[in-house]
């Protein structure tokens, strides 16, 4: 397997412009003869499908939801970054680039990140033109707020529903193309395989989730915008149906999977309450603009809180430890997510947690309400406070929120080159499904930026470079390759519904999630990772022999959908552990306990690990680890400091 990142020559600032000029074009008349499949309709998928159709390509778009509007991008809360510098606080494209590279703990490509920062400004323009109702100041201009890992205010937002509003914008652009007949929308279809012809991606196999029919779809190129794999942990802030299946099946067909161990644990989520828990709920990072994170200074006080003898309101100011402000005075509560999460875990592990399980800290708005007003806080975060109140049954305007870190985002994903093409020619990966821009830790409000950058502005340019060389012949599904792929999918589906073993899919998924959370979560050790690999293999066996999927494959069958996804999560989980084991350093979200500074911060090993690990699937043995060296020509690698 050869990894050619195709990073353009020249100065960082000129790379994207030069590259765009050099990319091959497809003339408008020929675009009509070319069909592109887009899988997933979140920010990356919907924006890509709409933009490609606008250019004249025929687009077939797929989602497993009943409507493209339900993709999980909808749940993103806090905001979207853009280097507009509307607030005159010293922001620039270069600063956004620099913050993102540093926030990612120097494990991302300079060229990709710079391009991301460069197009960020166009995204805001595009969204506003579509009618996205961003927050505004009284003068009618756009408002901004701050996010972690930055000292400027560059985050555009729409209350705590920015993802919803941006997705509805992209969905509206998609609807326009559907009405024009340039996009054919396929709802309730789950992609179960990618079809390769002569080594190129030429189609997909999907299951119609209402009838159970296995369908074939052919195209000249395939784009996966299928999101991240956070649900490997069972409990995460991802939507229940988010999964890795499309990306994983592509991996098994030859697409390298990069940096699977880079997962993001978000510091501010509502703590788990019981064993039946089905998912965790995020409380946006934007809350750290106004909320202060603390635990009691003494363990005895914490103990009393846990037992319900006293509440936060009984603890005087002098008895509180605002540990982020204490440890990181210059960034305070706005340190990056990985740093904030580890700091919370450290306090809880030391016995200062404030919920009955011991796994929780406070996020307190009392000072902000005193400084401004409850009304202003409501303006900014109303829906989040309401959401919290509904779940916990406690009023966060009066009582500090209780929060704890939870899995939220995955930086790893399908390896792509600068053109967003995977190692399979003609197969592209966009948004969270790829690995490319966030290094080992993503900064807040950068996921929306990347999804839309990829879909609106990058892929429309780069895909033409591939399509310019393909033949215009109408792609057909009547080939041996399609036959084989469709048969494999059908056999697997039948196999899953035929064995009525003793474990439900959820039981096995919970077991898997617990292992991954304990051993490939916030703190990892060589010993733990080796154990995890063994335990995951046991689950793999149990699944193979003893899974129970009720019902048949010829109907709506949620257990069957889940079974296919968990099957892939089990394999991915093993790869995550292998990747974490091989990366003998700590960086960003990957924290190997053996590698830390005296102060407990992540200790990188730049000499040996300033590279991307791209894994090649091997059906007959261990996966093969390839390396793409990361070259830093503009940024000096330093120990990240937020002090």
């Amino acid at each position, binding site marked *: 397997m050869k990894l050619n990142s195709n990073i353009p020559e020249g100065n960082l600032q000129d790379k994207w412009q030069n590259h765009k000029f050099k990319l091959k074009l497809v003339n408008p008349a020929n675009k009509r003869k070319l069909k592109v499949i887009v899988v997933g309709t979140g920010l990356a998928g919907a924006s890509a499908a709409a933009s490609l159709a606008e250019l004249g390509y025929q687009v077939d778009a797929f989602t497993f939801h*009943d409507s493209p509007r339900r993709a999980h991008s*909808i749940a993103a809360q806090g905001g979207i970054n853009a280097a507009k510098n509307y607030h005159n606080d010293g922001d620039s494209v270069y600063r956004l680039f620099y913050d993102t590279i540093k926030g990612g703990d120097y494990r991302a490509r300079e060229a990709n990140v710079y391009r991301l920062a460069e197009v960020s400004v166009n995204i805001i*323009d595009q969204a*506003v033109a*579509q009618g996205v109702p961003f927050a505004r100041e009284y003068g009618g201009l756009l408002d901004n707020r701050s996010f972690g890992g930055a000292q400027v205010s560059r985050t555009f937002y729409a209350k705590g529903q920015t993802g919803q509003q941006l997705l509805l914008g992209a969905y509206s652009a998609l609807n*326009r193309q559907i009405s024009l007949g340039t996009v054919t929308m396929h709802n309730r279809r789950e992609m179960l395989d990618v079809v390769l012809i002569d080594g190129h991606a030429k189609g997909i196999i999907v299951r119609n989730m209402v009838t159970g029919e296995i369908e074939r779809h052919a195209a000249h190129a395939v784009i996966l915008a299928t999101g991240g794999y956070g649900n490997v942990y069972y409990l995460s802030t991802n939507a229940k149906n988010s999964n890795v299946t499309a990306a994983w099946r592509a991996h098994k067909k030859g697409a390298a999977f990069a940096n699977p161990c880079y997962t993001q644990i978000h510091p501010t989520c509502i703590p788990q309450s019981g064993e*039946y828990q089905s998912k965790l709920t995020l409380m946006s990072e934007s809350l750290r603009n106004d909320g202060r994170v603390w635990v009691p200074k003494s363990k005895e006080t914490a103990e009393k809180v846990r037992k319900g003898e006293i509440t936060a309101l009984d603890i005087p100011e002098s008895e509180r430890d605002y540990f982020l402000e204490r440890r990181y005075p210059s960034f305070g509560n706005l340190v990056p997510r990985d740093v904030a999460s580890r700091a919370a875990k450290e306090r809880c592990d030391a016995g200062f947690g404030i919920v009955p399980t011991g796994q929780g800290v406070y996020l307190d708005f009392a000072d902000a309400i005193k400084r401004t007003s409850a009304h202003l806080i409501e303006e900014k975060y109303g829906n989040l406070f309401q959401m919290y109140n509904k779940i916990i*049954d406690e009023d966060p305007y009066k009582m500090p929120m209780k929060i704890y870190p939870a899995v939220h985002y995955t930086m790893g994903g399908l390896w792509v080159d600068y053109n967003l093409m995977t190692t399979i020619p003609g197969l592209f990966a966009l948004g969270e499904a790829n690995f490319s821009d966030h290094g080992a830790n993503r900064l807040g409000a950068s996921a929306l930026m990347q999804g839309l950058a990829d879909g609106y502005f990058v892929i429309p340019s780069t895909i033409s470079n591939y399509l310019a060389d393909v033949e215009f012949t109408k792609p057909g599904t009547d080939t041996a390759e399609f036959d084989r792929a469709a048969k494999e999918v059908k056999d697997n589906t039948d196999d899953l519904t035929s064995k009525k073993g003793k474990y439900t899919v959820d039981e096995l998924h919970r077991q898997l999630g617990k292992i991954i959370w304990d051993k490939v979560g916030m703190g990892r050790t060589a010993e733990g990772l080796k154990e995890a690999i063994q335990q995951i293999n046991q689950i793999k066996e149990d699944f193979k022999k003893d899974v129970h999927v*009720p019902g048949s494959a010829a109907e709506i069958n949620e257990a069957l959908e889940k079974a296919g996804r968990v099957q892939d999560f089990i394999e991915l989980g093993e790869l995550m552990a292998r990747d974490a084991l091989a990366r003998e350093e700590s960086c960003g979200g990957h924290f190997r306990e053996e590698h830390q500074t005296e102060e407990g911060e992540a200790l990188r090993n730049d000499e040996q690990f300033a590279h991307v690990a791209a894994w090649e699937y091997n059906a007959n043995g261990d996966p093969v680890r390839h390396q793409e060296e990361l070259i830093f020509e503009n940024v000096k690698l330093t120990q990240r400091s937020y002090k």
Partner: protein
Amino acid sequence: MKLTLEVWRQKNSEDKGKFETYTLDNANEHMSFLEMLDVLNEKLTKEGKDPVAFSHDCREGICGSCGCVINGRPHGPDEEVATCQLHMRKFEDGQKITIEPWRAKGFPVLKDLVVDRSAFDRIMHAGGFITVSTGSAVDANLMPIPKAIADEAFSAANCIGCGACVAACKNASAMLFVAAKVSHLALLPQGQAEKTERVKKMVKAMDQEGFGNCTNTGACEAECPKSISIRHIARMNREYLSASIASE
């Protein structure tokens, strides 16, 4: 908590469907309503029975996937929540809970509690967008929008497309859903160019899908998980009226 659940079971869109009664004795008040259904489904699976199909995804009230009629109310007995945000503390120990799908001509049942809401998408295809291709936008701050207008547009754009408004309405009207989009775009300067055509096309599509008309009872507003106000319906009616006059 011990519960008696009366759940609508329907194999597919052809099946007539009927209520089945189940008992559950290991629910607890901190569970969400959907977690309670998860527990029921684990139990049914273990007993070799078919679990209850229901739509859900984000489980934080924003994707709009979930929704059932619970004891006669869309999204159940709490205010401003989708079904996924409803918690069992809103019910009594020993209570009987009746769970049904959305019932409307425009939303055929696919299985159990899962309905087909693609009619909503088709209404959007008719005109729920601003015509602007990628790359042609001007600088975002070129056009100031007064905060009050932007906030009002947001209060409509807030719609999650769950369909509770239709389920709550005695006429199965989709007016609140359609009005939310018409109002959102009609309020903004960017939406002006197409506003006449948009309202006419979207209302026409809504009628074609078999949704009823609005008779101002306000049930939709009362059950909307995002509290979208029926003043948006008033705005849509005004837009529709002026569009009709303008074109004739």
